[in-house]
């Protein structure tokens, strides 16, 4: 057994991938972190409280994990989906009945999305309860709030894509709010002074039309699959970066 291990570890390929052996000493533990592109997001050393589940609940990390799961399943779903009024619903049916692992992929995406919204709210609650928004982390809290809003918007834009009654009317109800924007929505206060009609107001801009239709579906699709994930990713990078630069996971000040 040990021979086999040694053989594998001495192998050229293994060496090229892992570069060096891991021996449990201080140097190697540090190297394991900053020698790894994924792990070097972490500092080499963290406070013990950051490791304790009762302090962070792991919520930020879980949110990130949910985002990754959603990205992967989302990409798979994109292969089988056309954002057109004629095909969207049939594609959903085919996903259920014909696509290999279609059902489980869609379920993971749907429930993962719900889960992410829940977790991101709890994350915010935790950060507030530990006062972690206080100096020097004020700016990162703001980024977090925007990421929370983006999470809602991601879920919201995804709602329409199956093109079923649930999504259609949820989006209709949701975007009708836009019509009530003061000044810029045609049902909102003061809009008549700007000559706002259903055809040039905020909602029209959101939907690409006066009602939820093919354009709205396409816009949802692009916001959901490209634009918001892109923005969210950039903000996440900033968020994580700032977590480290602001001194890692917050902790009681040593007096």
């Amino acid at each position, binding site marked *: 057994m040990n021979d086999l291990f040694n053989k594998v570890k001495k192998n050229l390929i293994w060496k090229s991938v892992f570069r060096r052996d891991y021996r449990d000493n*201080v140097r190697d*533990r540090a190297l*394991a*972190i900053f020698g790894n592109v994924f*792990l070097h997001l*972490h500092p080499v050393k963290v*406070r*013990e*409280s*950051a*490791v*304790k589940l*009762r*302090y962070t609940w792991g919520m930020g*990390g879980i949110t990130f*994990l*949910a985002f990754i799961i959603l990205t992967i399943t989302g990409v798979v779903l994109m292969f089988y989906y056309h954002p057109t009024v004629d095909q969207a*619903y049939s594609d959903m049916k085919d996903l259920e009945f014909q696509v290999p692992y279609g*059902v489980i992929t869609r*379920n*993971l995406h749907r*429930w993962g999305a*719900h*889960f992410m*919204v*829940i977790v991101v*709210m*709890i994350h915010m609650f*935790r950060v507030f*309860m*530990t*006062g972690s*928004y*206080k*100096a020097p982390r004020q700016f990162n*809290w703001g980024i977090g*709030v*925007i990421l929370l809003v983006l999470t809602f918007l991601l*879920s*919201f834009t995804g*709602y329409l894509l199956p093109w*079923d*009654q649930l999504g*259609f*009317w949820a989006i*209709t*109800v*949701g975007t009708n*709010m*836009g*019509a*009530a*924007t*003061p000044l810029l929505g045609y*049902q909102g206060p*003061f809009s008549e002074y700007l000559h706002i009609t259903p055809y040039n107001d905020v909602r029209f801009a959101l939907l690409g039309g006066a*009602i939820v239709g093919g354009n709205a579906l396409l816009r949802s699709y692009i916001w959901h699959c490209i634009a918001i994930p892109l923005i969210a990713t950039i903000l996440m990078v900033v968020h994580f970066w700032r977590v480290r630069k602001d001194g890692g996971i917050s*902790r*009681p000040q*040593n007096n």
Partner: protein
Amino acid sequence: MNPFIEIITQPDNIAIVIMILMVSFFMVWAFQQAFQNDKLKSAGYAVDGELDKDVDTFKPLVRIELLISLAVMLFLTVWSIVVDAPLEEIANPTLTPNPAKAPWYFLGLQELLVYFDPWLAGVVLPSLIVVGLIAIPYIDINPKGNGYYTFSERKYSILIFSFGFFVLWLLLIVIGVFDRGPGWLWYWPWQEWDIQRVVYEPTRDLSNLVGIESRSLPGFIIGAVVVGAYMIGGMIWPYKYWQKKNPEMLQQLGMTRYVTIVFLFITMMSVPIKMILRLVFLVKYVWITPWFNV
């Protein structure tokens, strides 16, 4: 089937049940830790984590991250196997479902539509929520409680935030999911929905309470006075109060912070106030103007 079980086992509502369970659990855990830390502090000990030393990231942190990831994936996989994501009938613009509900996380806002006009409930209030959240670190100048759970050192901020988060946001969502049926009427979860049910609830405007037509000039003036008094009074009264009680704090805050805090606070409190006005006194509008109604 029992309507209660039916409504909580609807695939999409299972997420809400999970949310309720998780949020309750973490709420209890957070406050339990907060009170524990308070006790420690008042007894003169260090709070939890204050004496922590540095540890290597590899492996303790990486290991726990891996474990949590596995647990989460296991949880999501089980969820996805047990519950199938629903796909309703194909979208039909001519057939409005009753009730037509927004996505669940916006149901709190939709619930506000009962009490406010859409421009307030759907646009102004959500925008203020976002702005208010971002503003929190800049208006909360209390230096204590940074990095650990505590309650006694940040009583007010925690109370206000908890009220907003648990009551005005989550509770309204739960109400919207489980207690709103056709016509946006109130149904207890164990009640059968009835499409034909009509509840006739005569509503009036505030000035009607004193017998003045709300759509007349006097009505307009009364409304304006009431709204103005709430806003201005809400600004001035705490100022006077603190001036007497705690002038240093006011000094520390400065005028800009003070106005922002109080404005956000009284806007937030206007929501429960309007709800009470509506539910108890059947008041629909406080102030009617030719452009908008409040």
